[in-house]
């Protein structure tokens, strides 16, 4: 907002503000302020970011109106286009539902923040007062000179004084692109990559795996739904493959008990009984 205020301050001296400029200022400035306020007060982080986009767009427009086309377009392309998109990407990655924690992590953080905030506000107010009171307006800049700060002058500098650093930047960009590829690209369908479904089926029937079909799942019965419960084969015997090898590392006594129980080797309780097994009723008694 400072450039605008500056510009308005100059209006009194020898520069004039045309009607169109005044109109666009009074349209854009409230929008920018509203966007800034919206950014602070929005509850949702994504809304907050979008409000900020609005502010940045109006600032970019204001720059354009004040004959700083390069600055204006940079504001729109770099800030609104690139940086805000990065913001949004991060917000989406973090999850748009997640909200800030209001717990004060650093001791006295709020107090320090408040003091510093007041300080910054004071500095801004001081600078604005001075800008409105006694600043001699600068002459309009020639955008074709390097001092003009517009695209023409910058282009001239890039292709004359800073030709080498500019060209060297290309090495940087190539490295960055190649680095991203090296770190992120995996050859999924190569020798070491993931197999397609067809290759997997063929490999299974060629005997590279234990058996062509998936292993049977664990048994689920009225008395138990544990993964440690084995499945039963059609003849009533236990299917050993239905148990994960990990189960072996769990309590062996319990497991063999359950196996016996499923195989029907243990004395069964009454069909209407609520207890699953003797073990469970023992546990209940103990506790």
């Amino acid at each position, binding site marked *: 907002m400072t450039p605008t205020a500056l510009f308005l301050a100059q209006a009194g001296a020898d520069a004039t503000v045309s009607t169109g400029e005044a109109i666009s200022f009074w349209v854009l400035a409230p929008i920018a302020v509203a966007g800034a306020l919206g950014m602070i007060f929005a509850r949702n982080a994504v809304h907050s970011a979008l409000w900020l986009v609005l502010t940045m767009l109006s600032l970019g427009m204001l720059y*354009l109106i004040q*004959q700083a*086309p390069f600055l204006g377009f940079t504001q729109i392309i770099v800030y609104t286009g690139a940086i805000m998109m990065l913001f949004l990407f991060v917000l989406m990655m973090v999850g748009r539902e997640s909200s800030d924690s209001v717990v004060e992590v650093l001791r006295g953080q709020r107090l320090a923040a408040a003091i510093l905030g007041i300080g910054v506000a004071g500095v801004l107010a001081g600078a604005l007062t001075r800008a409105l009171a006694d600043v001699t307006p600068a002459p309009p800049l020639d*955008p*074709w000179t390097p001092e003009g700060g*517009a695209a*023409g002058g910058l*282009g*001239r500098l890039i*292709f*004359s*004084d*800073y*030709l*080498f*650093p500019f060209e*060297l*930047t290309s*090495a*940087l960009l*190539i*490295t*960055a692109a*190649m*680095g991203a*590829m*090296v*770190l*992120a*690209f*995996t*050859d999924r369908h190569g*020798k*070491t*990559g*993931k197999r397609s479904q067809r290759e997997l089926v063929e490999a299974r029937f060629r005997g590279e795996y234990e058996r062509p079909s998936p292993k049977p799942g664990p048994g689920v019965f009225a008395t138990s739904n544990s993964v440690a419960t084995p499945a039963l084969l059609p003849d009533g015997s236990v299917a050993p493959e239905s148990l994960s090898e990990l189960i072996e590392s769990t309590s062996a006594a319990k497991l063999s008990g359950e196996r016996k129980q499923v195989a029907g080797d243990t004395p069964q309780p009454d069909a209407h009984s609520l207890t699953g097994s003797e073990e469970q009723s023992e546990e209940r008694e103990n506790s």
Partner: protein
Amino acid sequence: MNVFLAQQADRIELPAIDYAAILPMLIILGAACIGVLFEAFLPKHQRWPGQVVLTLLAIAAAGVALGAYVGGSPAEGTTTLSGTLSIDRPALFLWGTLLALALGAVLLIADRSIEPGGAFVAQAGIAPGTVQDRAQVGSTGMQTEVFPLALFALGGMMAFCSANDLLTMFIALEVLSLPLYLMCGLARRRRLLSQEAAVKYFLLGAFASAFFLYGLALLYGYAGSVKLADIANATAGTDRSDTLLFAGLGLLMVGLLFKGSVGPFHTWTPDVYQGAPTPVTAFMAACTKVAAFGGMLRVLTVAFESTSWEWRGVLWGVAIVSMLIGAVLGLTQTDVKRMIAYSSIAHAGFLLIGTMALTEDGLSGTLFYLLAYGFTTLAAFGVISLVRDSTGEATHLSAWAGLAKRSPLLAAVFTFLLLALAGIPLTSGFVGKFVVFSAALSDGMAPLVVIALVFSAVAAFFYLRVVVLMYFSEPAADGPTVSVPGAFTTAAITLGVAVTLLLGVLPAFALDWAGAGGFAIS
């Protein structure tokens, strides 16, 4: 805006380009771009031979171009590309050093005989520890992008040494750093350690770059220009704000000292040296140090000579802290690669003493020291890559016990290199320390030289400890084996050892070349 568009701009004159002078750097950067195209268009099995041939050819061609230019180059140096690059005698010496060291490092990178497939992972994109990762352990492929990355880093280092303004220097700094960050994370064995090293190096390097950039901005505010010569003019008696000058110089130096792994800005060094694949560590230890100190010499000599009274005290402190950290913490290390890392921090302190001298002797001494130290470190890391057990390199010191009984030749070579690092006569390390310290003495830094001598004695202790361990301990039954190196690694180690010996016995020609002329001031 229409008003501006209507204005007809006069033609922009392209700056004069002295192609003969910058040809070595153009060859390296151009070959890096061709290497990228190789990656895109060559089938997988042809990439490794293609890249190796291209990279070695490029370095050789750049060396030839450099040799051809040195003969007829003006003694006072020249600036080209509207003053962004300064091709003077120190820059040419540094380029030659960088090319020779990079040749050795590329030979180490290209070696596939010690470890089937080389020291680099076949596919860096696969997460460590997954099923796919276990499957790729047996594969003999490697990420051949390492070669163009190394060339880009080398090109960046060459630009960094000859950059005559801070903006070019900053971009060259990034060009040399970015490939190094990447290459650190591509180790075949102990991939998590390697990736951790890469992340640490990247984050701390980004901080250092930010420091450099902040310093650059402040100095621009001070002098109104990023050119070193303009900053020198501005410092030579003006009423401008000294706060801007010294804050800017301080921040700038933090960025440079970080790259040179000096003193309190060294924290990344041990972890990154340990985690990175050993050939990359060799490249980093040798070439980055050359580039960083080359840049530092130029900045301090060209831009800040007239203010040396103010900043020299601070650099005294930094040099002492660096030697202290390197020598004392080096004593406590149990890993060979970390030990060499701390040794490099101590050496950075010694180098800084020569850098501060700002005399002709100081310049030539520091340049010579960089050359000598680079070759010794390169060969040392080459030797480290040969001592292996089933999990890869056996870098723990206990594994090195009694190595002389297993492989007398390797132990003898490593002993020689450690003696060179310690600075024993008849090695290049002695001559390097001698010229740097005598330059510092004649520039009135006697107390600092005494301190440096004390610390080099302390540092000699931990080199000798390894020697004693190798010769006077019984080898462990399940100790590591010493691989028979392939042609590439043999060539690299031989190069390093031969140069270390040669510079120790006949240093005169290299000293003459290092002292051939000063920086071009313009």
